[in-house]
Each structure stands twice: as structure tokens, then as C-alpha cells.
């Protein structure tokens, strides 16, 4: 509180201090051999002040009282210097009002991280190469690479508007790469990540042995027997893994309010909402296009109950029945748009400013079974997973290249398809949705944004989705 009081006494209209500690443990395993074991401890204090319309941020690893007060002075000094120039005149004199909380919370951890010995974790990870091998028939399993991480993130955020939130989130994650080689067909890569805010109980749910076996089996099948997709436009069923990525890229990102205003223009780009003159209330897709971002889903990788400005979290309906409904805001962007923050402020660590971010972004599921999505399709393509993807910097034109994919013949999955390419615009995708199944699934990722870059944990998800006919390319 001393930092806050000091900042206010020296003219700041808003001040915030965040103690932010991330304690990590990790293991790297390759082809069943332990490459190394290690960890990390990131710990420091972030200060943010608003002074005469200038937002300034300072971070320090010096946790002494003098060190923290020095950071306050540095932030104020930068703000003061810029406040005298026209360049410093931002549109924000005060942060927006918001439902500010005072709370202490943590996520539910049934099986603590130390409840399993490191030896046991090593044994599990080493065995996965053999599990993957079980799934391979015609190809050679060239590489399995696994990076396993445990993380405890502790934050205490205090601000001059009465906010005080002390939180502790425990997470478990793995990043995996499989490489298969075939003497005639070449190679295939499958990269996938798993992650949750959870204790070690999530390992049972992930069933890594089965997952590695199945991933290798699917890759073996598509590499050794994959064929070209049809050349004519066909109905496409997109798996929940790909759907989750699409809504993250084409709904979540373009609806981040700072991006809409242009704050990220030189980095992650702007938004079609700005560049194409679209506004809230405009239609982007059909009635089936409802996309929600919800930080409060238990176990979700980006779980939180209060954001990094102490604002109470809630689900955000970003697209609602095909209409642009709500931007993702922190209090700075909400002030520009003359609205209230909806608690999207997140900072990666003590060295990062809190900016509007996603948490768990997903397409609202439907009520059909997967088999019903395939019904009536004489010839089509099912794209279950992906490797390559990208989207332009206004979040309009995008591309996803399938990895595990199949032809659909007469309502049933048939031969594997290799590297089918989906390329469409944002309104095309949300207008082509024809049916959704009820099987809502989530996938973990690290989402990048900001300068310096802030990779933060998120979930992306949705059901399996059937699209009307479109052209499927081939790589």
C-alpha cells in the first residue's frame, strides 16, 4: 500500500502494485531418455500509474521497500516527462468504473504437485515413447519429444480504487512433438499441447499412454495412406480442436478492445472491426455463431475469478447468435469505449502490463451427435486436427492445414486425407456453420500478444461443426 499511497501523493490519479511470482518445475524427455530436469522462479513487483492521461509501467526484481518506491518514482517520472508533450495526450484521463473485488482464492487441487515423486513422473514420461510406438504400423517413429511443466502462480494485486486480490493458481502442462517417417511418403509432424489449472489429478484424465498411442496411430494412418481431398467444393466437418483455434483467432483476437482501438497496430495488428468499419450489433455470421470467453470455467488453463485489475470475472458473449456483442476490455480500453471493464486484464508475469486477453474461448455447442453431422454427406471431408495455421493482422483472412483428416463417404468416415487446406474469411466461416454437435471439448495453448511479448495460458474449444460446401485445398 505504501507504493500506492506514494504514487497518489505525487499526483497519480490511479496506481496499482502487483506482486507476481511464478514457480516452475519441468522435465524434458526425448525418445524415452531424460534430457534434463529443471525449474524456474520468476518473482517481482509491477507498478502501474496513470498521471495526467499518461499510463506508465515499471517492473523491478528489487523487492526492498526502497526498490519498490524507486520503481514508483521511475514510472511517475516517465509519465511526467511525456505529459508535457502533445504525444502524451492519450484519450484516457481516468480508468473506467468496474466491479472491483477484494478476495483471496485458489483453484481446486485434489492431488498436490508433490504428491507424486519426481521418479514416478520421469517413469511416466519415459514410457510414452513406447506407447507411441504401439500405435505405429507402417511408418517408423523417428522422434517423441515431451516438455512437461508444473507451475504455481501467486499474485497479490492492490490498487488505488480499493482492489485487493490474492490468488494462487496451480497448473500442469505438456507440449509434445511426434515425428513419423515413411520410406516412400516422407515424414509427418504432430505437435500438441495439454494444459489445465489443476493438480496432478489431471494426469489420469489425460491418459497420456492412450493419447500417445492414438496420436501415433492416426499419424501413421494419414502418412502411409493419406490421399488428396476432393477437387470440387464439398461439405466439411471441422473437429473441435480446429474449431477452438478458429474462434480464438477470428473472434477472440479481433474483439480485444485495445486492438480495435489500434494499440497493438505495430505488433499483433488491428481488427477488422476498425479496418472494415464494423461495429457492435453488426452481423458476422448466422444464428449458430455464438462465441463465449469465460475465465471462470473450473480447471481451465487460463482460469481466474478476478483479473489483474481486481475486476470480478464473468463469461463474455463476444459473438451472440451471429452478432458482434461485446469486446474484451481492461479498464483502460473500457474508458476509451465509454463502458465498464469486463475483467479481461491479464499480465504474463511481473514484467508485463495487464492488457485485454482471452481466457477460455469457445463456440457454443449444439445438440446433435457427431454421427448426425455426417448424415447426408455423400462426399465430404472431416478435419480433426491441424499443424499449420495463420490469420492476417486484421483477423479476416485465415488458413488452417489439417493433419488428421478423413474423407466422408455416404455419411461415414472413410480414407485418411493428407494436408487438406481450409482458407476462408471470418464472416465466411461464421456464415457457413450448418450444424454443431453436443461434444464440447477444450484444448490448451499459449496465446501471444503485447510488447514485450506475453505468452499466456488459454483454453480454446468448441463442438464438432459441419460447414456448408467449400473448396478444400491440398498442400
Amino acid at each position: 500500500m505504501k507504493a500506492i499511497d506514494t504514487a497518489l501523493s505525487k499526483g497519480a490519479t490511479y496506481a496499482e502494485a502487483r506482486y507476481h511470482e511464478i514457480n516452475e518445475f519441468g522435465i524434458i524427455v526425448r525418445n524415452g531418455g531424460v534430457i534434463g530436469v529443471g525449474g524456474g522462479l520468476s518473482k517481482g513487483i509491477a507498478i502501474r500509474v496513470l498521471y495526467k492521461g499518461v499510463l506508465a509501467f515499471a517492473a523491478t526484481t528489487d523487492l526492498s521497500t526502497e526498490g519498490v518506491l524507486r520503481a514508483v518514482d521511475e514510472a511517475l517520472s516517465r509519465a511526467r516527462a511525456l505529459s508535457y508533450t502533445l504525444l502524451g495526450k492519450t484519450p484516457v484521463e481516468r480508468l473506467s468504473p468496474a466491479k472491483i473485488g477484494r478476495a483471496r482464492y485458489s483453484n481446486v487441487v485434489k492431488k498436490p504437485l508433490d504428491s507424486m515423486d519426481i521418479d514416478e513422473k520421469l517413469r511416466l514420461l519415459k514410457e510414452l515413447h513406447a506407447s507411441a510406438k504401439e500405435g505405429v504400423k507402417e511408418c517408423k517413429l523417428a522422434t517423441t519429444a515431451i516438455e512437461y511443466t508444473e507451475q504455481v502462480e501467486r499474485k497479490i494485486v492492490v490498487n488505488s480504487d480499493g482492489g485487493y486480490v490474492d490468488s494462487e493458481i496451480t497448473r500442469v502442462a505438456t507440449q509434445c512433438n511426434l515425428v513419423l517417417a515413411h520410406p516412400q511418403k516422407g515424414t509427418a509432424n504432430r505437435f500438441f499441447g495439454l494444459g489445465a489449472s489443476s493438480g496432478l489429478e489431471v494426469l489420469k484424465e489425460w491418459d497420456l499412454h492412450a493419447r500417445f498411442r492414438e496420436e501415433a496411430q492416426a499419424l501413421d494412418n494419414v502418412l502411409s495412406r493419406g490421399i488428396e481431398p476432393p477437387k470440387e467444393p464439398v461439405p466439411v466437418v471441422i473437429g473441435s480442436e480446429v474449431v477452438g483455434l478458429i474462434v480464438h483467432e477470428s473472434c477472440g483476437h479481433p474483439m480485444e478492445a485495445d486492438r480495435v482501438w489500434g494499440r497493438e497496430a505495430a505488433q499483433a495488428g488491428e481488427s477488422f472491426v476498425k479496418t472494415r468499419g464494423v461495429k457492435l450489433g453488426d452481423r458476422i455470421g448466422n444464428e449458430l455463431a455464438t462465441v463465449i470467453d469465460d475465465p471462470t470455467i473450473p480447471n481451465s488453463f487460463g482460469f481466474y475469478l478476478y483479473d489483474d485489475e481486481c475486476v470480478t470475472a464473468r463469461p463474455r458473449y463476444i459473438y451472440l447468435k451471429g452478432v458482434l456483442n461485446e469486446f474484451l476490455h481492461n479498464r483502460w480500453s473500457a474508458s476509451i469505449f465509454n463502458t465498464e471493464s469486463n475483467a479481461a486484464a491479464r499480465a504474463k508475469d511481473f514484467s508485463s502490463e495487464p492488457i485485454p486477453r482471452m481466457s477460455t474461448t469457445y463456440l457454443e455447442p449444439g445438440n446433435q451427435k457427431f454421427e448426425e453431422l455426417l448424415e447426408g454427406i455423400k462426399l465430404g471431408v472431416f478435419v480433426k486436427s491441424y499443424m499449420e495455421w495463420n490469420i492476417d493482422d486484421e483477423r479476416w483472412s485465415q488458413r488452417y492445414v489439417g493433419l488428421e483428416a478423413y474423407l466422408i463417404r455416404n455419411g461415414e468416415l472413410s480414407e485418411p486425407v493428407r494436408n487438406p487446406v481450409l482458407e476462408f474469411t471470418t464472416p465466411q466461416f461464421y456464415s457457413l456453420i450448418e450444424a454443431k454437435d453436443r461434444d464440447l471439448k477444450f484444448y490448451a495453448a499459449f496465446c501471444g500478444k503485447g510488447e514485450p511479448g506475453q505468452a499466456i495460458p488459454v483454453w480454446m474449444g468448441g463442438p464438432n461443426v459441419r460447414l456448408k460446401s467449400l473448396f478444400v485445398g491440398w498442400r
Partner: protein
Amino acid sequence: MEVERIKEIVASRLRNEGIEEWALVVERRRSSMIKIANNVVTVAQGWNAAWMELYAAKEKKIGYVGSMVSDEGSVSAALEKLLLSLKKSEPSPIYGPLPRAHGSPLSDLVDPRIVEEPNTVLEISSKIVDEAQRLGVDRIAGTIHFGYRERYAITSTGFEAVQPSTFIQVYVRAFRDENSGHWAWGSTRFDEDSLLSTVRKASEFATLKLPRQSIDPGEYQAILSPLVVANLVNNLAFMASGMMVLMGASMFVKHGIGSKPFSDNFTLIDAPLEKSLPHARGFDDEGAPCTNKPIIERGIVRNLLHNAKTANYFNSETTGNAGLVMPIPWNLIVESGSADLDSLVKDVRRGFLVLNNWYTRMQNWIEGTFSTVSRDALIYIENGEFKALSKQMRIADSFANIFSKIEALTRDSYDVWWWEVEIPTRAPYMLINSTKFTKPI
């Protein structure tokens, strides 16, 4: 906290545990950043941070810890974490002893203006906006980031040195109506003219007076700007890290040392000794001497990038690119050619000048297949003349295909460093004979 004290705590504790082999890196950094958007400063940021990385090996078991340093307690906590890791780990297939050959710091990497007159650098942000408006753009966005750092490396083999250096990174995106341009610059030294040249180049492309035209996807010639070349060779150089090869995330699994996947016109150098580029240094994190060396020389794969561990695994020698865990490129130089930009444009019958790109993602690391999306000016060229501006097409190809079709390179190179180019890169314009452009149809 003094580095000497960190060293004492580390050396004493490890000695007591019977651990004879270790490497300690400590970095102290003070830096400032101004972010501009819509012609105003959106945030002024500053950092004062100290952190350490510690590697230790015992009976071929490898342990690593990275930690912020706030007090002696934080150093001790990091040590305990490392010791637990070592105790529980297993002999690593990549273990290799720390190098005995030692480097020494480079001199003249510190620009006193960055250290002593940070406000002079900050004041430049006003000049950038003024210059952009003088050049007729509507608005700009961008970043100025600068600072001073000291990187210490201390190892159990008797190496102990510090590499001080300053850095400055500037990039600007300029907008006029529907059009935008972008340019970037990075250096160890402050230079007002180079800094302002970013806004001049970005504005030059933003204010091009050409009609807008939608161009069909297909195979085209392409002039890649230094920004695009830098982004692509960043991806390529990361793949040259021995660790990426080991992990199956590299086209150099397939194209090993001595193979020739690229054109004679393509030489890519890892250049830590280039003093004007921001990541210049004389020694790596294991204390080994840094050297300039080709990753690719006249199309031939010459070097992977190694630390002592990956070198050991590949039965090679360290290349002075440690990363205590992951070998990394320092600075990159793409060897320039003899052409000028006008002559490259004249050589294009049907193609594009691609000013900028982002979101480069791989479909298959081993095959090196990827796509990347253009951003900012995408100039359609027909019969040697700029004809129109197009929008947001993507290049979908493979590294082997693109860099085996280099027709020509400009004589002039540019020092590029920005959000999408993490490793500072000196690159020319590059004419590619043919590559695939796609977009939704």
C-alpha cells in the same frame, strides 16, 4: 545483489554437494520502452531486473534453473531447486563437459548516450510522429525500446567474464487511408538518422499512390523485403539449433551438414562479432568464444548451432551458441548481392514486392513446409513496373523451395529487429524466381 556474492553462494553450496561442473549466468538489465499508437504514447514502460541461470551436471545428469534475483534467499531457493532436479534426474544422452576454450568480452558495445541520456532517446518519439506527419501519413504506431545490460558468465572451468552492451530497437508502422507501411531497425548504438529512417521508409510505402487490385492466387515471382527475409531466416536459424534438430523440429533433420538444399546465392551467417548488431558478444553462456560462422554457405548447410551438450550428442564441437540448455543464434547476416532494388523490380514479369509478413507457421518441420501472411504494402508488379496494391495474400511454400530459387539480392542491406524478427538480422532485398501465393477464394 552483487554478482560476486551470488557466485560465492553458488560455488560453496555446489562444492558441498560434491558437484564439480557448473555454469552460472547472471544478467542485470535496465531498459525503457515507449509504445505509440494513433500518434500518441499509449504506455511508457521500464524495467530494472536481475536474473540468474544455473546449469550443473553430476554423473552425466543435467539440472537447470532460472530465477529472478532479489536477495540471497532467491539464490538459495534456486539452488535447492537445482539440487533436487539433479538428485532425481537420470544420465542425459546429451551430456557433454563444459568447454575448456574460453572467449573474452567484446569492447565498444556500450553507447553512453543510451546509458546516460535516456531522456534524449525518449524525446525522439515526438520527432518520429512529427516526421511521419510531415511525410503525409495519417497516423503511426510503433515502439522504441532501449537499455543497458551486463551479462556475466562464470563456470567451474575457471571462466569468469562480463559482457556489457547497450541496445536500441525501433519499429514503425505508418498508415494512410487503406494503406500501410512498416520498417524496423536495431543496433547497439543510438543513431538519430537510422532511427528516423524507420519512419521515412514506413511512410514511403504507406503513401504509395497505386490503385488497389485483387490478384488471383498462384505462382508468382516475389521480391522479399529485408523485413520478410529477416523473418524467414529467423525461423531457419532457430531450426539450425542442435536442440531443435534433436527434438524433431527442424528441416536440418532431413538436410544435414554438407547437403545443398538452397541456391548458390544464399549465405546465412550467425554473427555474434558484428558489433553494431544488438546481440553482439564475445563469449556464450558456457564461456566458449563466440565466432562468426556460416549456417548456410552458397546454398550448402555448413553448421548447426551448438552448445557443449548438443555438440557432444552430434559428435561435434561447440559453436559458441550456448544457451545453457538451448543453443541459439545471436545475430544473423544474409550475404548481400550486387543488384539494386530498381533492377530487381525490372526483372519481375509478374509478381509481388512483399514488404512485410507475420504469423509464419510450419506444417511439417522436417520438410520445412510453412505459410506466412503478408501485411502492409503488397505491391503487384507487371513487366518490371509497380502496377497495384493488393492485400493480405500468404506465401505457402517450403524453405528449401524458396531459398533454392533466389535470382538476385540487393547490394544494400538493412539491420532489422522487431516483434516478428526476434534475432537481429542484416538482410538485403531478395528476388525469388517463383513461389506460391494463396488467399481465400
